[in-house]
């Protein structure tokens, strides 16, 4: 489950509001939560240490101490600091003033270099540049074939000389060819290599020296854990890379490696690779990454997911019902079933910022068992009862409880919470943000599915 840092911080600092002021103990508690969240996100242990230290200093400053909602304020600061750390005045790709711009790609085995080469080729080709590729991975079986195939798809010529030549020579030859053919850009693919493989790292240094690239890019897999720092430091030393391409960002890895690499080497993340198709490639957005690392909820993805499952008409219909307060238990049952279809519930709910608060504050676990129960209760109601829960009293409650194998208090609870939820959803649909306190009152009941049409 994507635990929400903001919710955890709110929970941690919830009593502060009554006390009115934040003391050092509170800040320490908050730092612990942040530390855990960042470690969960695979940010390097030492980077986390340094970061929370800086953060603590800022948090002890007056802007937090006097703030009315310290939890939210802390989150805001963390988000700002992370964004600043990962963004800042990075550099764009450097281009040659004359002759081909040479871009060298490096990284560990399996990081996604070859795919990234083709994507970058396509990306640069879009602005009209004549881009060629050089196949310098002579070790990995069929690596040259792979680059030739994807290069073709990207509309780029691939210079290759098979696998029997020294990669340094192939690179040099490719550059000569690129010059002769008057290419605008030459992207050089290299073999994946371990940063502790002295021989191969030395080979990379030799390639670099030989072709003198304008840009050296390190490709880093978004799911890399603590090891990212060691790798980045070694490559920084030997290959002196200028920027990073984060790959496989379409997964659900939080991507803390991005922060670690930037923090330790100071090199910017230039591009994000977000899928296997060639067009899944874009400039890196530090602010989006910061939110992702913090687990702030990927509402965009949730909406996209929901859009796949819920068709337009259904969604519009739902919105109308919510607005006019005609949303019934029958509708709720349908929505719940659709939400369950979308995937493991906890993961889904975790995607929504603020939803974690419900779980936290009551200490109850939102689980499938509860949903089964809610479903059973609703199914034991008559259509009239589902449409108008207000009529559910006395004997009806007993009957529903008996029919669903639950207790009368569960039925009461559902009806009460449904009512509160309906009010809340009406608020949200009309554009108001839900009050966490109201959410807290509903905690322990079934989760509320939330679809918001853009």
């Amino acid at each position: 489950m994507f635990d929400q840092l903001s919710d955890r911080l709110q929970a941690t600092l919830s009593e502060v509001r009554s006390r009115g002021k934040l003391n050092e103990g509170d800040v320490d508690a908050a730092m612990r939560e942040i530390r855990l969240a960042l470690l969960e996100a695979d940010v390097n242990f030492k980077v986390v240490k340094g970061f929370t230290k800086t953060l603590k200093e800022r948090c002890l400053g007056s802007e937090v101490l006097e703030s009315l909602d310290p939890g939210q304020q802390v989150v805001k600061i963390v988000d700002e600091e992370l964004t600043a750390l990962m963004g800042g005045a990075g550099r764009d790709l450097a281009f040659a003033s004359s002759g081909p711009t040479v871009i060298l790609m490096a990284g560990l085995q399996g990081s996604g270099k070859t795919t990234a080469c083709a994507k970058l080729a396509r990306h640069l080709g879009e602005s009209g540049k004549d881009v060629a590729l050089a196949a310098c991975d002579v070790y990995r079986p069929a690596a040259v074939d792979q680059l030739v195939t994807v290069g073709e798809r990207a509309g780029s010529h691939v210079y290759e000389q098979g696998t029997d030549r020294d990669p340094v020579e192939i690179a040099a030859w490719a550059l000569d060819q690129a010059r002769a053919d008057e290419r605008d850009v030459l992207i050089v693919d290299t073999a994946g290599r371990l940063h502790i493989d002295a021989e191969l790292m030395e080979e990379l240094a030799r390639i670099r020296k030989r072709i003198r690239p304008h840009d050296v890019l390190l490709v880093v897999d978004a799911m890399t854990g603590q090891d990212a720092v060691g790798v980045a430091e070694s490559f920084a030393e030997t290959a002196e890379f200028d920027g990073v391409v984060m790959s496989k960002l379409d997964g659900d890895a939080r991507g803390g490696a991005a922060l670690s690499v930037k923090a330790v080497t100071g090199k910017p993340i230039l591009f994000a690779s977000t899928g296997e198709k060639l067009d899944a490639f874009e400039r890196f957005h530090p602010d989006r990454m910061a939110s992702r690392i913090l687990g702030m909820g990927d509402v965009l993805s949730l909406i996209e997911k929901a859009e796949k499952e819920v068709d337009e008409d259904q969604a519009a219909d739902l919105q109308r019902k919510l607005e006019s307060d005609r949303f019934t238990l029958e509708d709720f049952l349908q929505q719940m079933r659709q939400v369950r279809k979308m995937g493991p519930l906890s993961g889904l709910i975790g995607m929504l910022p603020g939803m974690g608060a419900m779980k936290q504050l009551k200490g109850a676990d939102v689980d499938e068992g509860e949903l089964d129960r809610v479903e059973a209760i609703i199914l034991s109601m008559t259509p009239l009862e589902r449409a108008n829960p207000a009529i559910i009293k006395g004997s009806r409650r007993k009957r529903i409880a008996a029919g669903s194998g639950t207790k009368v208090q569960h039925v009461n609870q559902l009806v009460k919470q449904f009512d509160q939820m309906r009010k809340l959803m009406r608020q949200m649909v009309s554009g108001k943000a839900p009050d966490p306190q109201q959410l807290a009152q509903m905690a322990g009941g079934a989760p509320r599915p939330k679809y918001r049409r853009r």
Partner: protein
Amino acid sequence: MSTSWQEIFDLGARRAEAGREPESEERRRGVFRRLRESLSKSRQALVEEVSASLFDRLDEETWERLEEALILADAGAPTTAEVVERLEREVEGGAVSADGEAVRDRLIEILADVASTGRGPIDLSGEPAVLLMVGVNGTGKTTTIGKIAWHLSREFGLSVVMAAADTYRAAAAEQLAEWAERAGADLVRSAPGGDPGAVAFDAVAAARARGADVVIVDTAGRLHTQGDLMDELAKVRRVIAKQMPEAPHETLISIDATTGQNGLRQAKVFAEAVEVDGVVLTKLDGTAKGGIVLAIAAELGIPVKLIGTGEALEDLRPFDPDDFARALLAE
């Protein structure tokens, strides 16, 4: 003693080819030495040596440094907290004496214990035995298949058919073809863009026709977040079962040792789609320790069965929880 090939592969009724003697103790130790070397290419430190200073004095700092070592090994905060707390309790309760050596030994025991959850051999008792390789992109599936085929042939004299069921990735079949040649295995493939299930189906059929011992099915790397691709994988599995009801007999997921906490998520989602029997922990020749497999074993009951330690055919070893635990703490 390190786990042997005989222990990690369950060959069922098959007799290993006559003339192949089981690994002698000598050879195993020599292999372990090579393992240490390949685990730290340019470093002097041997895997067995835990940094002495870590356990000199038992104070608050010790526990912190222990935590740090485990976090840096990608064990994750929850697993680290559990293990360290357990150890602390044992020391405080007197079950473990408060001296460096005893604490170190006990910690290794605990870690090995966690890493042993769900431990069992790779089921190759089927005739033919069908092994399905799955995993996220770039984790080393294809290379591992080459290594497994080579070891099965060399250690046990088994014949292998590889199925190039990655019909998506550019030159994937060519890549596997190269490995088939190196390992002396047969290959079944289709045109690019073909149906992966069909390739697997054909491979099993071919293996039965030829009387081959093992079929290893390569699949395209896929992110566990791609629901439709996970469905496709489930379908491949069903199609294999159509050819042979009990197959695939073993499904292995490759996990890159550099993977952080996402590894747990990967294992979980893949297991939901296709019932994963074990993990191949790859690229352990780097500096990453692969600590996430502790969580995978503890929370999902899925054990590591093999480890990959390089890009050559020989660079594959049966997983040994004890060796792994020691390596986690080594600098």
